[in-house]
């Protein structure tokens, strides 16, 4: 024995026939309102079928695409394992390889390496520049008791960057002092 709700659902679905249909429709207090409600239920059913059917198709495509990508990536990985990491990155199998975080880290690392290089180069550049400076005479002393009239001057030659300490008036010595 079906309850009223069961008969109502079967009537909405168009599954009541014969005497059972006639008896049920006769038992309805307002047949016009029931027909209107049946029509609304049909419309809602059609709408839901349409929406749910489209989404199911989208998901199927998505999963199919994922499977194809994975198969292609694994095939490529088996062909050339040395470049596996690169191919994974290219095909996007592991989307985490070039995430924003990794890109930021890569950029920061590159920048740090560049700054270290620049610092070292600049540090070596300064000695290089200073080594091009001419030799500097800081101070000079001549014993006034030995060479009382000695004078000293300093200059540099442009050609060979030779620094010259030029003395005048030092004690002259005989040629014997030129011995080795």
């Amino acid at each position: 024995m079906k309850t009223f709700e069961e008969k109502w659902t079967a009537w909405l679905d168009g599954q009541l026939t014969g005497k059972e249909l006639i008896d049920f429709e006769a038992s309805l207090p307002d047949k016009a309102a029931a027909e209107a409600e049946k029509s609304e239920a049909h419309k809602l059913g059609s709408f839901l079928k349409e929406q749910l059917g489209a989404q199911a198709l989208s998901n199927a495509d998505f999963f199919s695409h994922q499977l194809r990508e994975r198969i292609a990536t694994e095939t490529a990985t088996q062909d050339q394992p040395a470049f596996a990491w690169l191919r994974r990155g290219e095909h996007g199998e592991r989307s985490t390889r070039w995430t924003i975080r990794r890109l930021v880290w890569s950029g920061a690392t590159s920048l740090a390496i560049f700054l270290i290089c620049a610092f070292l180069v600049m540090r070596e550049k300064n000695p290089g520049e200073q080594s091009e400076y001419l030799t500097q005479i800081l101070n000079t002393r001549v014993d006034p008791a030995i060479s009382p009239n000695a004078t000293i001057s300093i200059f540099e030659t442009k050609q060979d960057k030779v620094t010259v300490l030029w003395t005048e008036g030092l004690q002259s010595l005989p040629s014997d002092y030129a011995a080795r």
Partner: protein
Amino acid sequence: MHSRLLLIAACFALAISTVSAAETAHIVWSGLVIAENVQQPTPIPEELTRMEQTLKELFGYNQFQVIGQSSKALKTGDEDWLASSKFFALHVDAQGESDAGYTVNLKLYKEQELLLETDAKLSKRSPLVIKGPQVGNGQLLLVLVVDAGNEQAQHHRRHASDQSNPVVTAWRHLRRVIHDVLP
């Protein structure tokens, strides 16, 4: 990823240390030179060839003979040494290395007598020539050169070894590029 970064850092540090090691340790040549005018001058000593023209123009002599010399490899920058002839002695006392070169104290002795004393910052690319006393018809000169004679050989040797070392070569290229880019 961390292990890869460590590997890169290690390679980088190794390259830097290689380059730095290749550019340390200088040889300072110090010499007592008698400049004279003679009819048939002997060839100028190898250590003085790079400044031959300057010496001739400055002092007006055509022959330069070494009567005493010493070559010293500076490792700590605090070494001292003596270049001496029969009557003269040049005492060189290195007193530390700076970015510009070596600070040296020079003392010229005639036998036991101190004739001249000077302090100088000796630059690698700038030889030092001191005009000493007149000796007979000639002139005593004191000459100090960093890496004299060995400079070219060292340069060629270093250049050859650097050419065979791709890391050092790459580093030099990088330095050149950054030098060109930075003001």
